């Protein structure tokens, strides 16, 4: 093949393949956009559309914390600081300090995994920007509180019972070692609002 023929063949291939690409691009003009304008044009808050397992900023429900220190021991970087005192007479545990240093936390979830009641758990909140490192230390205790103790039978206090239901749902989401029960079958509350982001599927 002569040099001129090769030259024109290359030209043709270039033009054809560019039009192939343009056709793909053009077809996206009539497809639904995948991007969303965060945060201004969201019909619902992103936080409400995130899955239940989302590992956002940690929260602690002190009402159901048993003061067992399992979370403190599990954290690989010691960003949880808990102080407890045992009252020998009443056999109660008093928690006087429960701090989580969010600046150090890597949202790994190792602390909420061993928690017996789901007291420490990840929320779907992720907007944590702040002006100082100091204010990133979340202090959950102002006054010393008495730790929760599992009671026989149903929990009498309605508010605490609600928290406990929420906490146990959270605990159930984790895989239970050796258990045959697929953890997810437990009534896992799915995100209440339909997700804004279209679920990937054919034809989108």
């Amino acid at each position, binding site marked *: 093949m002569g040099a001129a023929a090769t030259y024109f063949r*290359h030209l043709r*291939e*270039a033009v*054809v*393949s*560019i039009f*192939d*690409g343009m*056709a*793909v*691009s053009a077809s996206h003009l009539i497809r639904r956009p*995948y991007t969303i304008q965060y945060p201004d044009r969201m019909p619902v808050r992103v936080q409400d559309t*995130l*899955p*239940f*397992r*989302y*590992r956002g900023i940690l929260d602690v429900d002190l009402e159901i914390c048993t003061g067992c220190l399992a979370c403190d*021991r*599990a*954290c*690989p*970087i010691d960003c949880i600081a808990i102080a407890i005192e045992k009252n020998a007479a009443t056999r109660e545990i008093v928690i006087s300090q429960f701090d989580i240093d969010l600046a150090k936390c*890597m*949202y*790994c*979830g*190792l602390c909420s*995994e*061993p928690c017996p009641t789901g007291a420490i758990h*990840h929320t779907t909140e992720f907007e944590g920007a702040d002006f100082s490192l100091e204010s990133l230390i979340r202090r959950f205790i102002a006054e010393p509180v008495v730790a929760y103790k599992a009671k026989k039978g149903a929990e009498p206090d309605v508010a605490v019972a609600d928290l406990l239901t929420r906490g146990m749902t959270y605990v159930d*989401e*984790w*895989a*239970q*070692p*050796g*258990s*045959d029960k*697929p*953890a*997810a*079958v437990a009534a*896992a509350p799915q995100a209440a609002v339909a997700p804004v*982001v279209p*679920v*990937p*599927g*054919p*034809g*989108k």
Partner: protein
Amino acid sequence: MSMLRTEEMTLNMGPQHPSTHGVLRFVIRTDGEVMREAIPDVGYLHRSIEKIAEKVGYHGFMPYTDRVDYVCAMFTNQAWGMACEKLAGVEVPRRGEYCRVIAAEFNRIASHLLTVGLMGMDIGAMTPFVHALREREMINDLIEELCGARLTFNYMRIGGVAWDLPPGWRDKALAYLDHLEPIVNEFNALFSYNKICIERLAKVAAIGPADAIDYNLVGPNLRAAGVNWDVRRDLPYSVYPEFDFEIPLGSGEWGAIGDAMDRYMMRIRELTQSARILRQALTQIPDGPVLAKVVRNFKPAAGECQVRVESARGDQGWYVVSDGTSYPWRVHVRTGSFAAMGMIQKLSRGLMIADLVVLIASLDVIAPEIDR
């Protein structure tokens, strides 16, 4: 013309250059546009991850393994889990292994999508990058639902995985695979078979099979050179022997075997192969537990072990020495990106400066994996 004096120039590329993948630096000795040599200077992203393992214990190290290679963290998770299980003789339940393979293969697709997208961006095509990232975003959504994080998954545990597949997830995953296969063709029409792309990548920095083996390349880079080696098939681990899949090989159909185009197409072909594995895994997945019983204070007997996984960047080796306490005595990670960096100095001789960017992108090096 003899009055014109030329001299060699030393240029600095990086560490914060937009097209060096992460914090990488090259010292380039160049004569005009043609390089004499590009010397990689690594270490800017060194975070002593191996040393950290000696301080945080076996369970606590799992989230750190995410940071070894944050683009495909499932594989580092899996390798660490496998190493600990091998040391202590823990057996992972079959459903757990399936969950691992499913998560890992999704991660491989996500990683390869990023690589092919970045290849486009590095040679100046923004559109393919956005298209590839859109697809990757959908995988991130799936993985987020599975384990609560989009990048640093911390999904696996010693003895299995931390969460079972959520209800309805399997159907979503299968629907995504149906959606992905046409998208790969669309992406090929958009970018891979574009004449400009082919001209830009073909015959650039070709690596033959002998060189690839000498320089210890692994994964897609090695297979692009025509060497038929894949840890998933040749040193089987997990449940990979139960799946039927092909290992694509570079054939030099664009001019030279193991050129940048071969390496690029290797990733595109592995996308469909991963989808094939995923389809089988998602339909065959058995019922049962996903996590074995492992004590909190994990203390494997004194000894050492080496495990290898086929990560998106190739054969990744984890060497762990235990002295019988609850902290590993020594951990070492052997990564594909580091070996690939060693080859850049040789390949860069006589290459254009603009082709260096192509070379880096086609070797798919990721800075945290080089430095750890």
